[in-house]
């Protein structure tokens, strides 16, 4: 059996860390090959080496049995390798067609000739069922469509080896299904697909073979039909992983947060983004607010944590009206917030790990005296937290958080919020973009918080998370609470009806 790509003994180091340690990967022509691993296992690095973004210190790359030197993405392109990055590389005010031809424009007497290109794009779109409108502006089309434009770019360049870096992270469930179909289609047409993921379901449903990476080393390459999810997750994390959240029934006690008739006006249009919302959270329970992205969850959380102004209604916390209290007042009185966007709100990426851990507590007596920071206690505490929460980074407490992997950045935030020993923990999509090991850890932490008598308000888009973690579910649709459910007695389909606005009931 001949291989289309052979990456032999690849070693790539970064200061303080070996991202790829002597990895040998062989890809067959026409297969869908998944690359599985935790955050920071070295998947993206390995693919970047193949695509010419990084240069490996050691090892060689063979394409169709011949050794190749790939110094930059143009070389990669020359060898027929294309890549769809996690964050798309598209020009937003260009049309689909313009984006596709960018860099390989065809000319007629020195003048841009788009008609030929358009025909080709339409033909390709047809052949692979991409349903792309060549004249649409990128800014006007959905994220799923933008991804297809990226795929089309590779096809237009006649790439034979297609790399996908976590292609489903940004997609809705329906878009994921369609992408899976497209990928299968591509493989049937003889293209070779390499895709990076940490979602086991996707591997089981479309990949032919899977290579598992852990801490920079290749653990194994397996045929997908000979393994199951449990085995894969164990290989990936290096220990047994509970895919199910194990917890006892909730024993809720007093109400800690009561929201009454809350409204937040949108700053873009006349409508309320949060419209007459009332609910309460009790100690000892995890209340989950489920919903499709963009239905007012963000503004609801901003209102609860003080990041935005409330236009109508009241928020009571431990019986006190905190509707107009400051962010600082809320955070020092036991409301912790794991924010939705860890780069926008959660971390100061240019500060190091220790400095980020004191983001809300730097003014407390432990960390300062007369306005001067007490570095010895800041760093000793940081070291303790790093050990307690198993946060991994190159330089421990002195690591700049920008250089850390997403999962470990999230751990920093979770650690910081839980260390304050809050009474109410508001967690917004706490597991977004994380691998199973980290997800398990965060879910366990949420349940622990609940069991120690804290109230947890979880905002999540992932149905599986909603079903498995929460004790009580409320569904939000267009800024209103439209349904409630008991996770033990509801099916995902029923929740889906509420989430899409097809069904609604009065909340008691």
């Amino acid at each position, binding site marked *: 059996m001949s291989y289309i790509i052979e990456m032999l003994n690849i070693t790539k*180091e*970064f200061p303080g860390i070996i991202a790829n340690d002597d990895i040998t990967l062989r890809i067959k022509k026409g297969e869908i090959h998944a690359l599985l691993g935790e955050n920071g296992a070295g998947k993206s690095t390995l693919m970047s080496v193949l695509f010419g973004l990084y240069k490996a210190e050691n090892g060689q790359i063979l394409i169709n049995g011949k050794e190749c030197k790939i110094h930059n993405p143009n070389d990669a392109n020359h060898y027929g390798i294309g890549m769809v990055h996690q964050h798309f590389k598209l020009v937003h005010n260009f049309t689909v067609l313009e984006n596709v031809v960018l860099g390989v424009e065809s000319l007629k007497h020195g003048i841009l000739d788009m008609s030929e290109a358009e025909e080709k794009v339409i033909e390709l779109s047809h052949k692979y069922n991409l349903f792309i409108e060549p004249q649409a502006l990128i800014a006007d089309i959905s994220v799923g469509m933008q991804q297809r434009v990226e795929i089309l770019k590779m096809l237009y360049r006649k790439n034979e080896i297609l790399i996908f870096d976590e292609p489903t992270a940004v997609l809705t469930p329906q878009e994921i299904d369609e992408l899976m179909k497209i990928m299968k289609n591509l493989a049937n047409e003889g293209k070779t697909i390499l895709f990076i993921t940490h979602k086991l379901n996707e591997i089981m449903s479309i990949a032919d073979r899977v290579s598992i990476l852990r801490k920079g080393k290749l653990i194994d390459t397996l045929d997908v039909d000979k393994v199951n999810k449990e085995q894969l997750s164990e290989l990936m994390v290096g220990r047994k992983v509970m895919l199910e959240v194990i917890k006892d029934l909730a024993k809720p006690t007093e109400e800690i947060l009561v929201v009454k008739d809350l409204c937040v006006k949108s700053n873009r249009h006349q409508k309320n983004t949060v419209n007459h919302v009332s609910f309460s959270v009790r100690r000892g329970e995890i209340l989950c607010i489920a919903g499709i992205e963009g239905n007012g969850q963000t503004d609801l959380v901003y209102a609860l944590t003080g990041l935005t102004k409330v236009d109508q209604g009241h928020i009571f916390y431990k019986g006190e009206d905190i509707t107009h209290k400051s*962010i600082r007042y*809320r955070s*020092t009185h036991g409301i912790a917030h794991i924010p939705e966007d860890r780069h926008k*709100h959660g*971390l*100061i990426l240019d500060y190091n790990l220790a400095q980020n851990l004191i983001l809300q507590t730097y003014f407390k007596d432990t960390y300062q005296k007369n306005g001067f*920071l007490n570095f010895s206690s800041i760093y000793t505490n940081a070291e303790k937290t790093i050990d307690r929460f198993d946060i991994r980074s190159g330089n421990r407490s002195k690591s700049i958080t920008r250089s850390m992997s997403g999962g470990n950045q999230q751990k920093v935030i979770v650690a910081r919020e839980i260390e304050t020993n809050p009474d109410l923990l508001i967690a917004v999509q706490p597991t977004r973009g994380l691998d199973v090991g980290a997800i398990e850890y965060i879910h366990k932490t949420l349940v622990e918080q609940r069991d120690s008598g804290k109230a947890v308000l979880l905002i999540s888009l992932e149905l599986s998370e909603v079903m498995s973690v929460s004790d009580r579910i409320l569904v939000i649709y267009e800024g209103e609470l439209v349904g409630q459910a008991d996770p033990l007695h509801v099916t995902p389909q029923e929740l889906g009806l509420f989430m899409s606005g097809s069904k609604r009931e009065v909340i008691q």
Partner: protein
Amino acid sequence: MKKWLLKEGNGKLFASLMAILIGMVFGFIILLIAAAVAPKASYPLDGLYTIITGGLRYSGIKGFGTVLRYATPVILTGLSVGFAFKTGLFNIGAAGQYVMGGFAAAYIAVKWTFIPLEYLWIVGLLGSILVGGLWGLISGLLKALRNVNEVISSIMLNYIGMITVSTLVILIPDPFNPSRTKVPLSQIPTFGLDTLFGKNTVDVGIVIAILVAIMIYVILEKTTFGYELKACGFNRNAARYAGINDKRGIILSMTISGALSGLAGGLVYISSITKVFDQSLVLQKEGFDGISVALLGLSNPIGIIFSGFFIGMLRNAGTPLSRSGFNEEVVRIMTSTIIYASAFSLIFREKLTKFLTRKVGK
């Protein structure tokens, strides 16, 4: 050595030194060209030597006094720009804050004779800090409350400050006569620094500038206040999330930045040198030199002390350079090249890291 260079701070230092080297090489090329075309300027190496030594080869210790005199205001305006930059703001209004502060100091030193003369200069400097701070505060308030870009508001305030001062100088009668604005009464004391540097005009101003730089360093790196301000600068959203009052941060930061430039003006206009308030409606160059100094010092307060000295040295080399038959402007070309190169310092640092990591790997 490689490890040493790979450390963040050292890499930055290296980048700045590279910028200086590039400027020197470029300046030398200009000297070579000049030597080739102008018969008078026949010793380019001699010219370069004059520049590198800051002209001190002719003037010796007395010349060093002049360097200190030049360095004093630009260290402070450099700190002003650098401090704002560290907190995420671009204060381009140092020139306006500088001239307003300078006027306030001179006014107090001349008019407030009810204060004992030996303390009057201190009150004058405090006045310059206050008025410079006020000038910065305006930009800060506009930015925080009305979201007016601080670059635009501070540029406009440069001109407003300049015209205000030239109007006031005319309006206020003697001894603010524009032809002799030299402060007759209370000057900044020298504490013997003038005799130390061969009867020069050095006074305690340079000591104040260095102490202020150290103070700013401590504020930025060691205090909770600096932690807050830098947090606002790096990521305003995250600072807000953490309960830091970002608007207060912006206002304070612009005020402090303005106060630093104001003090720079105070230290110049009530010193023993005869500095006349300019009637020709030209922005004072100390303000813009601050941007260069801050860039070359990579906004680090300690780095700014050194880059301030360096810019002072270059400036001092101007006149002696003409002795070797070259035009003074060569120094300006050199300075500008260095500033350009230091704006690219990030690229140097990246290349350096890449180069070194590749070597370490092998």
